[in-house]
């Protein structure tokens, strides 16, 4: 089957996307979910099991504690409390841990160790899957069953002070709250004073049941100066005194009411040795968790070492402590020490409730749940429990009862542990089979693509895809049969859920056929290439492809970047790799320019003769398989190797200066937005500009940037789009002024801040208009063949439309990124690519590098938290999913997209120039 290169590439991309999607579906398993998401209130609690005899205890047990205070200290690593620091700086807490009525644990957090998922884990008891992040782009509110919602539904009054993440997660749950933003990391006193100032008043009042305090200061100190800073000690001491205040107040209240209260001290995540968090080092995972209540009586000699537990266990414990149903998605098991003081019947009741909830979750998520050891243990302990109840109700011999009770309890605890473990494993389990199928598809397409590159890039831009002949070959059918058999075997024997097995048989068969067809195509392409290789090696005149230093750099740089992604630090700091690479690229270009400029006479004769010789010898031998892979190459060969000497003096100087100009631009952009992990907290120009004191400077910069953008883009536009562009850019400034980012000169203070919907829509109209004009031109050029100028203009117009959209979506302090992007593109086109005659492959890779670098210049990083979601609301009154997703995606990937569209328009303009040149030459020949 003959295909155009473009069609072939499009097909490859489609199959590649399918493969990657399949892989991702297997890599990010759907989190463990209970299907009864909303109707949890309707569900009655599981009754006490009983064998024969009737037990009348079907209601939920009453709450164990009257009031619960949760004191969450951000970044409270376990050794801050239990280690030497705790002894030194937290004397009261240490006293409670060692001698007081308390239970202390080391709670292990799961990945990612960032505040928001950790709060979710603490309150829902579930493990947030990675896919949650994508699903919850719009509504950060927790929709899952959780302790807070349950408590609110049960009529508990909840008060919250601290990190405003909670307010976003639980928007209507608190009767009173005061959120503090955690944006300014360098502030570590205000954030905590803001919480503590409410404390005295609240502790005196009696009108609440749950009080949640989230202290951010410790984490901020960690971010700024690390875990060994002296500030940590001060902060811990402050926290200790606050804990003492709360505890004494709770105790004095207990003296009046005689019902125990609960005080929970916990951390959401730890702190690495550098002071950050988010990864999986032991210091980041282990947090302190202390439950303090007068109910946890302790005899003098009772030494309790902090046990290792899971962070998710807290949700189940809190639910039981408050007399609420356990959240449906919780995978945690009850922290048993908290109920140890209760009568045996209650203990067993609590354990039973927890086990029922876990086994229900297991039933809903694991198809073959009856085979799970945890489930069997649960069934057995439930039976024993029933026996125990019967004995209890019959008021049997107390010793037998006691022994049986202890046995049931032990069994329940074992069952809980196993159930909880297998549920958490469910989350961390990859769907290997789907991943494998996806990988095979991607690799096959990649191989096919690599094999057909020389053919696809040849001047005919057409290639033979051996797709139909193998369709009737034996190999294809054999492969298909083998794969189908494999599929059946894998799917029937799989014990966990598998996405690919869940597909219909027809779809799976289609995928299998695709895989085998691709394999056949790869094999036949390989065979063809070997045959051609043999033919070539017989031919002694085979010229060695000559690689310039620049080619080597580009190839090694691209491969080196791919290899560098094997280290997690290089992923976190990927921007550094790209900045480094484009700097090196600029220096290499500089070297090339200078050599061409000053040493032309030295190397020209050799190079010329070599190239010509190579070309002459290749041309007859390789009719259909050209070494000169791209369309621009003949152009380069036909003329002299460089045209630097044709430039006039002034222009020559511009050429010589251009790499340095680009380097300077890149350095400026680099200090505009600090990103990554290690150096993200460094001061940068972006923060300076966005602070409210420098609004005038920001306005000036934005206005200047918009003017320069217009100047750079309008050169090659038609008149209508020029006007549209100017009006659009004006609209952008008006929009930014309307939402209060920038000022008009006549405007002294920004008093009326609107959402700027009208202004933004005004710009949107122009963007659509310009894009429409461009598309129209493109279509016209398709209809009227061989008119390349219209196509070039059309592509440029589409490009300028995208630039206008980016200018609207970028935050004002990021507008220089857009300006420099356009400026570098202009300089590169004018003074580097055209005079030095780089070929299409080199230019493409350079565009790719710059596009990647500009992704990071915008302030993005590989962390999803840096995505600017506000771009999705530009020009929209309410949240609309599709446009918001599109706008956010465009704003995030504006750098790479703009460079890619520039590449298309540049290549098209070069082709048209070449065609024109050829036409002139033929005309000259004819004359």
């Amino acid at each position, binding site marked *: 089957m003959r295909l155009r290169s473009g069609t072939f590439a499009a097909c490859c991309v489609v199959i590649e996307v399918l493969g990657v999607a399949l892989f991702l579906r297997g890599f990010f398993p759907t989190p463990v979910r209970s299907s009864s998401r909303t109707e949890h209130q309707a569900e009655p609690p599981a009754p006490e099991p009983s064998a024969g005899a009737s037990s009348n205890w079907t209601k939920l047990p009453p709450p164990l504690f009257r009031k619960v205070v949760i004191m969450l200290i951000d970044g409270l690593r376990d050794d801050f409390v239990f280690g030497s620091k705790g002894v030194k700086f937290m004397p009261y807490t240490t006293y409670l841990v060692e001698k007081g009525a308390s239970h202390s644990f080391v709670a292990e957090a799961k990945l990612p160790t960032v505040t928001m998922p950790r709060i979710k884990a603490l309150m829902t008891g579930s493990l947030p899957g990675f896919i949650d992040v994508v699903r919850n782009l719009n509504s950060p509110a927790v929709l899952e069953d959780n302790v807070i919602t349950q408590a609110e539904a049960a009529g508990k009054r909840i008060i919250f002070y601290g990190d405003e993440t909670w307010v976003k997660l639980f928007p209507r749950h608190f009767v009173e709250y005061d959120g503090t933003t955690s944006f300014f990391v360098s502030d570590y006193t205000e954030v905590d004073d803001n919480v503590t100032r409410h404390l005295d008043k609240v502790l005196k009042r009696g009108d609440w049941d749950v009080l949640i305090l989230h202290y951010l200061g410790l984490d901020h100190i960690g971010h700024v100066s690390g875990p060994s800073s002296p500030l940590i000690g001060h902060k811990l001491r402050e926290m200790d005194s606050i804990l003492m205040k709360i505890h004494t107040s709770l105790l004095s209240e207990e003296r009046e009411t005689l019902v125990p209260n609960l005080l929970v001290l916990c951390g959401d995540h730890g702190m690495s*040795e*550098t002071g950050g968090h988010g990864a999986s080092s032991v210091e980041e995972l282990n947090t302190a968790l202390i439950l303090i209540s007068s109910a946890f009586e302790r005899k003098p000699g009772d030494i309790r070492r902090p046990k290792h537990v899971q962070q998710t266990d807290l949700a189940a414990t809190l639910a039981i402590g408050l007399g609420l149903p356990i959240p449906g998605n919780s995978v945690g098991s009850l922290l048993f020490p908290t109920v140890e003081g209760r009568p045996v019947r209650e203990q067993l009741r609590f354990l039973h409730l927890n086990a029922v909830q876990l086994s229900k979750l297991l039933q809903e998520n694991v198809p073959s749940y009856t085979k799970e050891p945890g489930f069997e243990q649960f069934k057995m302990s439930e039976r024993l429990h029933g026996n125990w109840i019967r004995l209890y109700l019959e008021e049997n011999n107390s010793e037998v009862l006691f022994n049986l009770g202890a046995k049931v309890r032990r069994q329940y605890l074992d069952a809980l542990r196993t159930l909880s473990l297998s549920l958490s494993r469910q989350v961390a389990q990859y769907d290997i089979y789907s991943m494998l199928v996806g990988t095979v598809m991607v690799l096959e397409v990649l191989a096919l693509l690599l094999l057909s590159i020389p053919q696809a890039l040849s001047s005919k831009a057409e290639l033979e895809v051996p797709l139909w002949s193998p369709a009737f070959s034996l190999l294809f059918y054999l492969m298909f049969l083998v794969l189908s058999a494999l599929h059946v075997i894998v799917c029937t024997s799989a014990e966990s859920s598998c996405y690919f097995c869940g597909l219909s048989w027809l779809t799976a068969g289609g995928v299998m056929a695709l895989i085998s067809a691709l394999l056949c195509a790869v094999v036949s392409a390989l065979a063809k290439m070997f045959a051609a290789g043999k033919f070539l090696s017989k031919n002694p005149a085979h010229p060695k492809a000559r690689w310039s230093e620049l080619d080597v750099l580009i190839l090694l740089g691209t491969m080196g970047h791919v290899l*560098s992604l094997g*280290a997690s*630090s*290089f992923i*976190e*700091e990927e921007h*550094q*790799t790209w*900045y*480094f690479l484009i*700097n*090196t690229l600029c*220096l290499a270009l500089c*070297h090339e320019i*200078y*050599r061409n400029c*000053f*040493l032309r006479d*030295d*190397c020209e004769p*050799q190079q010329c003769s070599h190239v010509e010789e190579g070309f002459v010898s290749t041309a007859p031998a390789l009719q259909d398989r050209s070494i000169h892979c791209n369309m621009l190459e003949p152009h380069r060969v036909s003329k002299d190797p460089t045209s630097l000497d044709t430039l006039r003096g002034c222009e020559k100087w511009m050429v010589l200066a251009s790499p340095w100009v680009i*380097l*300077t631009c*890149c*350095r400026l952009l*680099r*200090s505009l937005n600090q990103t*990554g992990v*290690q150096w993200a907290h460094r001061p940068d120009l972006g923060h300076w500009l966005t602070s409210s004191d420098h609004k005038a400077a920001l306005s000036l910069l934005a206005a200047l940037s918009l003017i320069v953008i217009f100047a750079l883009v309008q050169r090659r536009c038609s008149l209508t789009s020029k006007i549209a562009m100017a009006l659009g850019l004006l609209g952008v400034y008006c929009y930014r002024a309307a939402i209060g980012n920038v000022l008009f000169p006549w405007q002294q203070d920004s008093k009326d801040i609107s959402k700027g919907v009208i202004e933004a829509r005004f710009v949107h109209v122009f963007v659509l208009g310009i894009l429409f004009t461009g598309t129209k031109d493109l279509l016209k050029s398709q209809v009227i063949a061989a008119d390349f100028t219209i196509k070039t203009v059309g592509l440029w117009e589409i490009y300028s439309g995208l630039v206008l959209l980016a200018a609207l979506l970028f935050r004002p302090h990021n507008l220089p990124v857009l300006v420099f992007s356009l400026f570098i593109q202009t300089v590169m086109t004018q003074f580097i690519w055209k005079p030095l005659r780089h070929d299409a492959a080199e230019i493409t890779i350079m565009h790719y590098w710059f596009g990647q670098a500009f992704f990071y210049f915008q302030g993005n990083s590989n962390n999803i938290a840096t995505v600017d979601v506000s771009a999705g609301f530009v020009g929209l009154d309410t949240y609309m999913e599709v446009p918001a997703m599109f706008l956010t995606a465009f704003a995030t990937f504006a750098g790479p997209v703009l460079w890619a569209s520039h590449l298309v328009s540049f290549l098209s303009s070069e082709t048209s120039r070449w065609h024109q040149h050829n036409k002139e030459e033929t005309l000259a020949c004819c004359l």
Partner: protein
Amino acid sequence: MKDTDIKRLLYAHLLCIFSIILSIFIPSFFLENFSILETHLTWLCICSVFVTAVNLVLYLVVKPNASSKRSSLSYKVTRFLKCCIYFLMSCFFFHVIFVLYGAPLIELVLETFLFAVILSTFTTVPCLCLLGPNIKAWLRVFSRNGVTSIWENSLQITTISSFIGTWLGAFPIPLDWERPWQVWPISCTLGATFGYVAGLVISPLWIYWNRKQLTYKNK
């Protein structure tokens, strides 16, 4: 003729390597708590002085380019001054390039500048010794097929390997290993030093290996 030349080259290079080793060990006799990592800046100065001295001595003793005809004292002095200016210029030039590569502009200026000095010592000083303050000759040496003697060939190899060493030396900086040598600019200076030493070792071997293929154009 050629083999003796290569031998001379090898000895000269061994002397250079020796000077670098000396710069590591000698100062510890005179200075207290001297170590490469902790008193890095001192080591940078000492190393650069040692290497420069050895290069100058070698230049005066070996005289690789025998073309220097009789020349007046004033010519020599101006030449020397020119060389000094070139050296300073190259230091500033490297400093600018480091800043463009992302070195902090205001903080750690001394560190960055000393790094520029040591890189100039490894690259510019041998060039100045061998080629003199002649930009055209430099460009010729550092382009394809431009070398005219084994000295120039070895110069090309050592210089390029110093640059590559420096370039590769920047890679460990973003890694989160928390080692003392990951601090700016230690990994880069160490990379430059290793690259220089590697170039010194490799170039005589490479030239010896390829002595049959290498033919130099005579001027």
